[in-house]
């Protein structure tokens, strides 16, 4: 893909390009199989349905980058969708901004609980979020007391939200919810690429020991990732409320694993330090596109969908692993002639052994034991 002239594509960009290619192939394969596949209506359908899982994939990526995982996302979606739904139903004159703000706030609060336990309680993220997955959900069940929120209770602006169109070309509508998802992706991609905060998130995920020795505020960074992911899950919860209208206590169940699948297909490494938000969006789009396309192929009954989806996800990650390995080999062989090149600043290498005094006061206490 990149000419061997030293200007190499970054692995993230390569992954995004390969995902785009896979999405293109998917479209080519399904076009002859499904009537009216390349229509504006199908685009509207996919772009609306992908938003929730795209936002969650971005949330999951934010946490995965720091070498953690958030399995409570589905429960956070359920809690925010229900509580926010109940609130706007009880206060129909509340402004949209306040409604969305409430959802984001609740999500951020729940994410903060996760983050504090992981960063300050030093409990592994998978343990914490496996626990809060169950705790948030059972709180919701107690709280809801078997009551379901229905579409009629909600103010009309909530129910109209999924169909609100920003711009349209013929059949093809650009839906507001899709634009929201795009904005989320662009904002996170830009801030993590440009802001110090974002670079540090990658640093603590790719080499925690080195990041610690450099004096990065490890705990605050992990906490911020969890709060961010919770806030995004809150937003997804609101999108869920708007899209389905009818909310019961099972809302969002299983989304935690869907979001991990989308993030991982999108190139986030579960070992931390790698992943992009554009990739997360593309991963979500690919999975949703496959899902929506398979529904429309008559030969594939609904019973086959998950089986094929599982196989395709596995193929995607295997293909991705092969591609990355090829890329590494290529880079290694191209880098060999130039021995004395300066390592890229993004790769945080351990600084001089043990700087005795940390320049940053928030320096993690563990490091001082060493």
């Amino acid at each position, binding site marked *: 893909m990149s000419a061997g002239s030293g200007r190499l594509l970054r692995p993230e960009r390569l992954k995004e390009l390969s995902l785009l290619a896979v999405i293109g192939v998917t479209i080519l394969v399904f076009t002859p199989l499904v009537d009216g596949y390349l229509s504006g209506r199908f685009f509207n359908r996919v772009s609306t349905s992908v938003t929730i899982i795209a936002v969650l994939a971005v949330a999951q990526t934010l946490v995965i980058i720091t*070498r*953690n*995982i958030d399995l409570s996302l589905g429960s956070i979606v359920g809690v925010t969708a229900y509580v926010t739904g109940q609130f706007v139903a009880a206060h129909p004159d509340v402004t949209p901004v306040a409604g969305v703000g409430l959802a984001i706030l609740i999500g951020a609060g729940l994410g903060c609980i996760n983050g504090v*336990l992981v*960063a300050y*309680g*030093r*409990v*592994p*993220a*998978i*343990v*914490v979020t*496996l*626990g*809060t*997955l*169950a*705790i948030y*959900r*059972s*709180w919701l*069940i*107690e709280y809801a007391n078997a009551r379901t929120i229905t579409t009629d209770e909600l103010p009309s602006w909530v129910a109209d939200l999924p169909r609100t169109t920003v711009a349209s070309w013929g059949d093809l509508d650009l839906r507001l919810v899709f634009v929201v998802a795009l904005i989320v992706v662009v904002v996170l991609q830009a801030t993590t690429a440009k802001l110090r905060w974002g670079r540090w998130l990658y640093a603590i995920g790719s080499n*925690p*020991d080195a990041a*610690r020795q450099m004096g990065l505020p*490890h705990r605050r960074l992990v906490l911020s990732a969890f709060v961010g992911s919770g806030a995004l899950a809150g937003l997804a919860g609101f999108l869920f409320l708007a899209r389905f209208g009818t909310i019961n*206590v099972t809302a969002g169940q299983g989304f935690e*694993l869907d979001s*991990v*699948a989308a993030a*991982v297909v999108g190139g986030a490494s*579960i*070992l*931390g330090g790698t992943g992009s938000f554009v990739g997360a969006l593309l991963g979500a789009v690919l999975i949703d596109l496959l899902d929506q396309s398979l529904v429309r192929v008559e030969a594939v*009954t609904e*019973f*086959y*969908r*998950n*089986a*094929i*989806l*599982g*196989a395709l*996800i*596995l193929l995607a*990650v*295997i293909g991705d*692993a*092969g591609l990355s390995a090829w890329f590494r080999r290529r880079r290694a062989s191209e880098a060999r002639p130039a021995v004395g090149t300066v390592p890229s600043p993004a790769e945080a290498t351990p600084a001089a052994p043990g700087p005795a005094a940390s320049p940053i006061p928030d320096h993690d206490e*563990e*490091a001082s*034991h*060493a």
Partner: protein
Amino acid sequence: MRDRLRPWSWEILLALILVVSIVYNASRSDVYLTGDNFVNLFQLSIEKVIVALIMTFVIINGEIDLSVGSVMAFSAAVMATVSESGLWGVDVPFGVAIVIALLVSLVVGLIHGLVVVKTGIPSLVVTLAGLIGWRGAARVLVEDRSVGDFPQWFGELARDDLVGPLPFTLVLAIVGFAVGGVVLHRTAFGRSVFVIGNNAAVARYSGIDVARIKLRLLATSAFVAGFAGILFAARLGSVRGNIAETFELDIITMVLLGGISIFGGSGSLLGVALSIVIVLNLRNGLTLANVEGQVQTGVIGALLILSVLTRNVAERYLLRPRAASPLEPVPAARASP
């Protein structure tokens, strides 16, 4: 030193929790302390207990298997459809259908293991795809039907007492844990499972065939899950596409509560056995106190977090000198899942 002291203190804590929960439950209900109640309490989750045994090995080895619930359903679905409609038009005796289902589960595990070992993709991701895919495969086989009509002996296998008041499945679990404990803590194989979980690179340099052990464990994990799925079908009397859904979370919770580190390399089977008894005991007690199933799960989730949190806090303030070892990476810094 620490390897001796730490796990034991953890198990003592679990034993204390257990005693408290038994005393509490006994004070709340007079049927609680009967032998039948205890047998019942185990029997209702026996499949999870059996899978938790192999999950302990997998997690100590530094891997994870999220697909167990789906593989349970897939294996049961294979058994049910093969016995119902035969293979390529040939009727298959029920016993053979079970063998086929077990072989299929083994193949499933080999696929997981080979992908993990050959491509280096984390088992979390591979078995996540398995979680979606094998559940789908089970749906392909049984669609939305409920396939039952099993021979009588099959149902009796799950229900009837074998030794004293203990049914076959419970005897199997007890024997399994005894054998598993010996294999994990007293054999060279068990040691290498720990060594790999602690540091795969070191294990490789000490001449341990890391790939082979990982492959074996992941294959066994699916095989045991398939077996548990068949036992589950025997107890339920029929197979549906959605059986054993979300079992993976309960099973992993049991293992982690048992003091097994999610990063691999530490823990003991005794701890897992204790945590299983605690979890089942708690559920039993909460049921007797009329607490809903989903809310029980929340209580167990809280217990899971608290168990690790209290250990961290205790270590920090009571066993402080331990942190002096410069060679040991701080826990928070180690690889997540």
